């Protein structure tokens, strides 16, 4: 494939000032409905003395401002987005349509339960589906994101041990390859973490695990496939060891895309699993969120699930607020309903017949990329990968080119870079997750780009890599300055806050 197959060009790009730098004349862009009478006299004493200085723009100006800003962004709809551990797959447009139905968008969470049976039915069904997919039948939909699910899970595990009078268990084992949220969530649940070093093959070191197991261990937090993209084939033995020591196994479901419809974490001995529906079930990432992180648990942990939760009694769906051993609420409502409904629609689109094809094509794509790149990029842990593959810059660094340069060059070639410098256990990590919704043609363009970059390194033709990116709206940004002298809000006098 020729280089001009790469899609990035300098198109018509507009500079757009900050809202606060524009001239503001319009009183308000909006004609408002409602009651235009007097407010209560008792409020007069509390009326704002100075306006907030929120700049208003007319509707056409507002649209143009935000459309121009949107055009400086790369999204999954714009192009390839192989961020490892993030599962950037296509987000079906029909899912955007259904959550905007008035009977779903304009429902108040405190409406009488008989007036919300439709949405409760959809959410209850999703609970059942997620339980079935995880192999862990009891589900809470409350957690708002993966990390929030981890917190809820660790709170349940702690409550489980405490309920048995086993309240010395405060240690959580976390592999050094884990997402940073794992140790942070354990600490938020009042537990202490102990890092378990990975073995030379990138997997859990069983001896290190055994050495740390004991009467003080509450749980092992495990991501499987792990963040090197490898499946922990010893999973059965790992769970058995932890269980025998009286601990539980928490599964980080960030990488469920590799398993969905193929194998179930619950069957492997995982006790508790959060599911990132914004990864596996294609809800949009929105530039950082919202996500949702429902948690599925086995019978042991079911009594500790958060309330409120949804149950079905005959033909009626009920919101249950009481639970004797429940950890209580971790979120202000039943969950991020709009996100959860999109996930339900995604699962419905595949159904029992096709769900496994998600994992199949995701794993196929990652192994295809690995196969095409393994001779020119160093592969720290050779062998079959799952939904993502891990490379490093070891061979390029000899030519003075680092992972960051490779990533930035990909931008000039029209693609979002892979996840860089994670996992932390290898130097110069490049974690590539293509997902199942990418065509072979796209993967080939990416692989060609990576091969071209490697060839440029070999040829010593590296200036174009160090200078990258040259095409986008901004070049490399000074993050040191941003952190040293933080300017976090606009101050009319300019750069100091």
């Amino acid at each position, binding site marked *: 494939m020729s280089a001009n197959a790469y899609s990035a060009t300098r198109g018509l790009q507009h500079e757009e000032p900050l809202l606060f730098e524009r001239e503001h004349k319009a009183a308000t862009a909006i004609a408002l409905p409602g009651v235009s009478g007097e407010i209560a006299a008792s409020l007069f004493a509390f009326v704002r003395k100075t306006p907030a200085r929120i700049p208003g723009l007319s509707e056409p100006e507002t649209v143009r401002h935000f459309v121009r800003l949107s055009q400086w962004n790369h999204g999954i709809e714009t192009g390839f987005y192989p961020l490892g551990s993030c599962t950037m797959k296509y987000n079906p447009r029909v899912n955007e349509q259904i959550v905007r139905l008035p009977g779903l*968008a304009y429902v108040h969470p405190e409406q009488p339960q008989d007036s919300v049976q439709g949405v409760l039915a959809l959410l209850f069904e999703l609970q059942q589906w997620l339980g079935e997919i995880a192999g862990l039948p009891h589900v809470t939909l409350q957690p708002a994101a993966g990390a929030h699910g981890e917190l809820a899970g660790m709170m349940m595990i702690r409550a489980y041990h405490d309920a048995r009078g086993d309240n010395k268990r405060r240690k959580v084992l976390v592999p050094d390859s884990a997402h940073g949220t794992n140790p942070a969530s354990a600490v938020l649940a009042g537990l202490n973490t102990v890092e378990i070093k990975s073995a030379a093959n990138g997997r859990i070191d069983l001896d290190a695990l055994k050495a740390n197991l004991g009467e003080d261990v509450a749980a092992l937090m495990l991501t499987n496939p792990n963040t090197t993209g490898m499946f922990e084939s010893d999973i059965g033995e790992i769970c058995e060891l932890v269980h025998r020591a009286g601990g539980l196994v928490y599964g980080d479901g960030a990488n469920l895309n590799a398993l969905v419809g193929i194998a179930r974490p619950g069957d492997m001995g995982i006790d508790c699993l959060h599911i990132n529906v914004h990864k596996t079930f294609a809800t949009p990432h929105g530039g950082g969120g919202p996500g949702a992180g429902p948690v599925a648990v086995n019978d042991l942990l079911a009594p500790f699930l958060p309330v409120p939760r949804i149950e079905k009694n005959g033909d009626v769906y009920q919101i249950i607020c009481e639970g004797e051993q429940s950890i209580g609420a971790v979120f202000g409502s039943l969950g991020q309903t709009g996100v959860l409904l999109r996930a339900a629609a995604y699962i419905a689109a595949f159904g029992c017949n096709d769900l496994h094809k998600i994992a*199949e094509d995701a794993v196929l794509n990652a*192994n295809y990329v690995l196969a095409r790149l393994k001779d020119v990029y160093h592969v720290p842990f050779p062998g079959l990968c799952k939904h993502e593959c891990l490379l490093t810059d070891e061979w390029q660094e000899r030519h003075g080119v680092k992972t960051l340069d490779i990533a*930035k060059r990909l931008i000039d070639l029209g693609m979002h870079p892979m996840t860089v410098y994670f996992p932390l256990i290898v130097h110069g990590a490049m974690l590539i997750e293509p997902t199942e919704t990418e065509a072979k043609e796209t993967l080939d363009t990416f692989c060609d780009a990576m091969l071209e970059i490697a060839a440029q390194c070999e040829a010593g033709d590296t200036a174009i890599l160090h200078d990258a990116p040259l095409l986008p709206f901004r070049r490399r940004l000074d993050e040191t300055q941003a952190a040293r002298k933080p300017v976090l809000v606009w101050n009319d006098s300019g750069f100091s806050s």
Partner: protein
Amino acid sequence: MRFLPHTDDDRQSMLATIGITDMRQLFTDIPGEFHISKGNLQLPEALSEAAIVRKFTQAAERNRHAGNTRCFLGGGTYHHFVPAVVDYVISRGEFLTAYTPYQPEIAQGTLQTLFEFQTMVARLLGMEVVNASMYDAATAVAEAALMAKRITRKSRTVVAVSVNPRCREVTRNYLSQQQGECVEVACADFSTDVDALVAAIDDQTASVIVQYPDFYGSVYDLTPLREACDAHRCLLVVTFADASAFGLIEAPGCFGADIVCGSGQALGIPMGFGGPHIGLFACRQKHVRQMPGRICGMTEDLDGKRGFVLTLSTREQHIRREKATSNICSNQGLMCTANACYMTLMGDSGLEQVARRSAAALQKLLGGLPEYVKTAAGAHYNETVLSFADEKTRQHFLSVARENDIFAGIALEQMMAGADARHLLVATTEMIDEQDVDDYIAALEAIR
């Protein structure tokens, strides 16, 4: 399958490149005992796009909603007007389908929007710095309580019972995982008991958490709390439920709050049966390094052009792991865009009009109440408590109102276990018009 681009030929040729012949060989590293047979999951058959639309439309039609009723429900979620432009902007694929802006050169749209969001929220709340969102009001309050403990290195938290019960519960649950005491201070007659709170603050107190306007809609002077906090080196945390209030009433920051957090749902986000909403989180500049969550900051690129990046990330879990200020990673990013777009369309004058109309609708309602309905004393923004003689009267009214397509309020005990079953929490917004208020009052008259 319509979301999967490969043909079987593609798959075969890719398998050949990998050096295997069958898809199942991709999974040989998963022990055989854990493989499930294809199609064996207890899930329904796959649905076409048309069938999905039908399924969700049928479910949606089983719900009543604010589009075909008159919604006087509040308690943390409000039916304000959402301009079409807001939904259009957040539906743009470039905003909707982008990840967290880890590669700033190709995420300047998200980043500049976040910077504008942070600035506008700071101005609205009267605060110095704002993060790029928390999940919701409840988790924002919980994080504020934890942040105050880190800053003061003290362990006691004082919470007013007039804080939204859902926020209180989540805060209690978060705090219960840590050392330290969480004390709830009772309220007086559906308003915040400032004197009791002042009395409850001691030298061990890390923060006092109040809601303004409070859960009952009551607006009050926070000055005595600020003074008590100063006397005991304790932080003043102010939460709020309906951010539209600050288009009209004095912002919490003006009372010297240290942390201000609450829901931004009122600013351009539909109620959506409880989410996704957004938790707004603001603090003083000097505490920014203890703040949870992502923050966007201004900088320059190699050519000296202004640009934006995520910053101060050494607070965060992906760098600090177990020592991070919070475990939050995914936040409510797209909802920041919704808030920013909404505030831009409104401007100061639009925000003031939303607030005035929300407050005016309540004033009109209170002015027309029959005598048998008792109201809470004090200043109220757009929410208050109506009290009936007994539960039976209230339930009778609720059902008559419902027959007239009015959701007339939240039975207080539904949100606040143990509350007397004769009170009704009632909220108004600019979506309530004169006719709606008249019909509400007519329903009250009808059961007299």
